[in-house]
């Protein structure tokens, strides 16, 4: 396959960047998208040029490290997969592919396609945990968890924190990420004690980071590689409003 790539290049510590055009030949349809970028980077290094910086780690869709806005879609055209699981057979020979970093005020570009997602870490620090006393490992069945609660908590906990929800949202809102984390813990018995404090603190932290507001386009759900449902945003809205009535 022959492809034309238009890739955002931005040097470190430089707020300005541009799109650079790269023509790549002999791309195998069996390559993953990131492997295709690896091949291009090898060529660039051979030519003595700066390789393209992009985030990646496990390359099996579970770490949440890879990103990329591919032809205007977060993680590319496939539903329910991260960029690392996207394959070149999804593209046509001779196609032009535009590759951009996640765009949000809360996700500043570090270099090229790499953005700083530590805003998510600060939101988790604000309340995305349960406090437990240290000591011996408790017996597994000490706290019974109803099956539906376990299922729902697991669905929310599938979030890998990649930030595709923010990237795909027309308002750069982080509601799906925060909702997944709030819902995961609010559904389990272990999370009940800090339930109200958690949702209030995490939403406050989210707002402080400068993310946008949810206007219910549900683009986040379509882009999410773990297909987290927007019902968790409903749940977070409900938890927040209930908590505000209890402690206004």
């Amino acid at each position, binding site marked *: 396959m022959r492809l034309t790539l238009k890739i955002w290049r931005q040097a470190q510590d430089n707020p300005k960047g541009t799109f650079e055009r790269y023509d790549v030949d002999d791309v195998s349809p069996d390559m993953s998208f990131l492997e295709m970028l690896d091949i291009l980077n090898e060529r660039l290094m051979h030519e003595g040029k700066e390789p393209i910086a992009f985030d990646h780690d496990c390359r099996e869709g579970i770490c949440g490290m890879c990103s990329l806005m591919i032809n205007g879609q977060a993680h590319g055209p496939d539903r329910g997969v991260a960029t690392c699981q996207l394959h070149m057979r999804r593209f046509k020979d001779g196609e032009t592919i535009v590759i951009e970093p996640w765009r949000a005020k809360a996700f500043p570009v570090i270099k090229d396609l790499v953005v700083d997602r530590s805003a998510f870490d600060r939101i988790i620090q604000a309340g995305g945990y349960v406090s437990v006393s240290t000591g011996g490992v408790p017996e597994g069945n000490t706290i019974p968890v109803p099956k539906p609660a376990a299922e729902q908590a697991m669905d929310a906990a599938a979030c890998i924190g990649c930030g595709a929800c923010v990237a795909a949202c027309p*308002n*750069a809102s982080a509601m799906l990420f925060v909702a997944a984390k709030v819902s995961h813990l609010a559904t389990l018995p272990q999370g009940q004690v800090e339930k109200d404090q958690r949702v209030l603190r995490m939403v406050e932290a989210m707002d402080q980071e400068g993310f946008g507001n949810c206007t*219910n386009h549900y683009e986040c759900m379509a882009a999410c590689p773990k297909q987290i449902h927007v*019902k968790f945003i409903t749940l*977070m*809205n409900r938890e927040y*409003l209930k908590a*505000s009535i209890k402690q206004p």
Partner: protein
Amino acid sequence: MHASPQSSIGQKALMAATGLILLAFVISHLLGNLLVFAGPEALNAYALKLRHMAPLLWLARALLLLAVVVHLWTSIRLSRQNRLARPVGYRRFRPGETSLSARTMLLSGVLLLAYLVYHLLQFTFHTTDPALAHLTDPLGNHDVYAMVITAFRNPWISCIYVVGMAALCAHLSHGFDSSFQSLGVNNERLLPLLQRVGQALSLAIFMGYSSIPVAVLLGIVKLR
């Protein structure tokens, strides 16, 4: 730790609650207006009855005005924050899930506001057409029936009303289910249902309101 109406979720709840108050008004106003098909006596008697409930009427007006102001003010704040949240846009951005009505909420909202101002100037304050203020029925009361028909006989005015109602339809078809989502009253099964109910309701409201100018222009409803 305290909740705040200025938080993202607080503001969305305000939008939803005020939106639902305004929707309740839109529905009750439509039901009253449809009395035009029952003839001048029915419509004028209804209008008179409303005037006799003055304290309640003024209370409702105050509530509606407050809802409009809060809805507007919050939408301006939210839109500003949303714009600031993505200072550098994408070269290519292909949303796949959202609807046209959802993406044009600001446009339909601005159109609706312009329509609302015109509507109040015309039928409430009689500024655009002062002659409408002095119509009286055989009982000596304000003749709402004649006022509506005289105004809608002008195809331009009828056209403005149909366009205004199209904007309302577009606004509501996203706003309805969105309100429930923002207030935390939704789930996986309810979501597609609320979306369909919202679309059906907004279409029904559009057809209900538009039927009046259309019926006047076609001569189905005329002066007696």
